[in-house]
């Protein structure tokens, strides 16, 4: 694309970098627009679901019957609010914190594949990269809590630090199962390994992955700091926790980060456990045949179908997380911590061990029909072993 732009503008080779920069900025803007749309939809869905659960209608006035334009109205309201910085706060860090919490979540979408060919940058280690980047979000929140110069905020920030660092461990453990089954950390290959009917999805691979999937769900909710694990804000104890002192635009950046993180963990979970862009019924394969031997238009259509599949699954995930927030009560902080270390972590470790044994004992599955696997890694391992064993 950069090459094409540079040819089109007939740039001399020494100015080619301008083309690269333009294309990079353009791609970043597209990605940002995508994330912001997802965030806007999620806030609207949150209001609607909350309304339905509480036997209300939710927003109905702004933008037609269903209140489609409510996110826009919310945004306008937030932008026009007064922007306060408390006298006790460290002004630089206070300003920096919201962006530090939003930027990593945005980075996740760089490595997340929407369909087998639609990924901003194809990482070899995408699954691990996303888990690592998601873990960075916490620092913005700790910093916001610390820089506010308020005791409520500080307590919220400390809770967040303890909670997120703890829940990262079982989260990574449960995410390791699909990586183990597919034999690679490449999310595109992991998605491809679940091609076909829905019983090929890793969540239904064996009982242990089923357990791991639910651990992933719990830890993902806790890791994104959503209710019922929103101990960092806990309005009944800490006023508003880490964002007590924030208002207006900066507060909304924290919220955008939270909603974008929801979409990100749902996306990762969908690719890891729920088949990614493969529908429950292999319609795409019947319609378009194997992906390699087709014209660009058919290829594009199959990619589009994959992306639609993926996005529908993500929306289901996000709505599930929202309905969790409005149905479950909030546990105490010690209950949250003991849930992580006494239940989630041992269960995740056991599931990991069990899945390892399952693959070892029943490599072809219970019915002996075999499971499509990503072959590249296995081959490289086999080559290694052969090389070492051959004298």
């Amino acid at each position: 694309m950069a090459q094409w732009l540079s040819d089109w503008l007939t740039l001399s080779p020494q100015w080619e970098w301008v083309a690269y920069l333009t294309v990079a900025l353009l791609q970043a803007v597209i990605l940002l627009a995508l994330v912001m749309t997802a965030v806007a939809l999620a806030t609207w869905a949150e209001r609607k679901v909350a309304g339905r659960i509480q036997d209300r209608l939710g927003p109905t006035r702004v933008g037609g019957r269903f209140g489609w334009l409510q996110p826009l109205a919310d945004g306008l309201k937030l932008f026009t609010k007064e922007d306060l910085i408390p006298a006790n706060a460290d002004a630089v860090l206070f300003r920096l914190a919201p962006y530090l919490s939003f930027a990593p979540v945005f980075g996740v979408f760089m490595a997340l594949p929407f369909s087998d060919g639609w990924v901003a940058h194809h990482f070899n280690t995408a699954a691990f990269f996303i888990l690592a980047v998601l873990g960075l979000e916490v620092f913005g929140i700790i910093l916001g809590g610390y820089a506010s110069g308020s005791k409520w905020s500080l307590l919220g920030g400390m809770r967040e630090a303890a909670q997120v660092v703890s829940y990262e461990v079982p989260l990574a453990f449960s995410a390791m199962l699909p990586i183990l089954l597919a034999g690679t950390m490449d999310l595109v290959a992991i998605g491809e390994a679940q091609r076909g009917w829905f019983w090929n999805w890793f969540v239904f691979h064996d009982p242990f992955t089923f357990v791991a999937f639910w651990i992933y769900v719990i830890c993902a909710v806790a890791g994104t700091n959503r209710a019922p694990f929103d101990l960092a804000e806990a309005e009944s104890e800490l006023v508003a926790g880490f964002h007590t002192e924030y208002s207006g635009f900066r507060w909304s950046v924290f919220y955008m980060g939270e909603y974008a993180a929801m979409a990100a963990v749902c996306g990762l979970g969908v690719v890891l456990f729920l088949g990614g862009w493969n529908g429950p019924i292999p319609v795409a394969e019947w319609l378009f045949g194997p992906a390699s031997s087709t014209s660009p238009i058919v290829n594009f259509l199959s990619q589009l179908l994959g992306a639609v599949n993926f996005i529908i699954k993500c929306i289901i995930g996000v709505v599930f997380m929202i309905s969790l927030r409005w149905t479950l009560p909030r546990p105490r902080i010690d209950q949250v911590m003991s849930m992580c270390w006494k239940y989630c972590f041992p269960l995740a470790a056991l599931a990991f061990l069990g899945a390892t044994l399952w693959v070892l004992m029943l490599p072809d599955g219970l019915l002996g029909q075999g499971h499509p696997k990503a072959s590249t890694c296995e081959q490289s391992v086999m080559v290694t072993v052969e090389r070492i064993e051959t004298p």
Partner: protein
Amino acid sequence: MTGPDGMAILFWLFAIVTCGGALVVVLSRHIVRAAVGLILSLFGVAMLFLLAGAEFVGAMQLMIYVGGTVVLLAFGVMLTARRPLLPLSTTRDQWLAAVLLACPLTVILVQAALSYAPTDSVSAQVDAHSGVSTPVGMLPVTPARLGMALLGFSQDNHRPDGGEVSHGDSGYLLPFELISVHLLVVLIGAAYLARREVPSGMTPRDNQGQLQ
């Protein structure tokens, strides 16, 4: 990455982030600002790793350093601060000593870096050893290869012509095991050190009851 120019742009961007973060660490007067500088710097380093083709190590840097170690540091700051935003005290003597030591060190290191000629000089040596003359492209380092090397099946030390494997070429199983035991020891040690001080003649349970 997108061609040499794209790589150069990204390299300079992240090099500036890395060095800027390091400068913030040195020049800031607040410990938390120094921690933020460290975050920026380590993040830049992770991105430089990704640029250099070390994807797994780059992600590891993000997860362990930026997501783990620095959060731990921030936690430590919060637990040991008597009041928020305590300024760091630095005397002039310390700065003098630091500058006196840093200047010659910088000169030496810069000289060393400049004297390094960026050729594939390693290749000539190994060429003579294995008798292979055609240069092959370097293979990407995948997590599977790293994992096999840690388990004792190192792929990199094998001659392209399938020559014999000598002792000591078999990967990193022993260091891997040692570091696992080391981590366990550290875990226990840190937990022991950080436990609450219990006055003598009192069981921990009594102490807790007293505090509540």
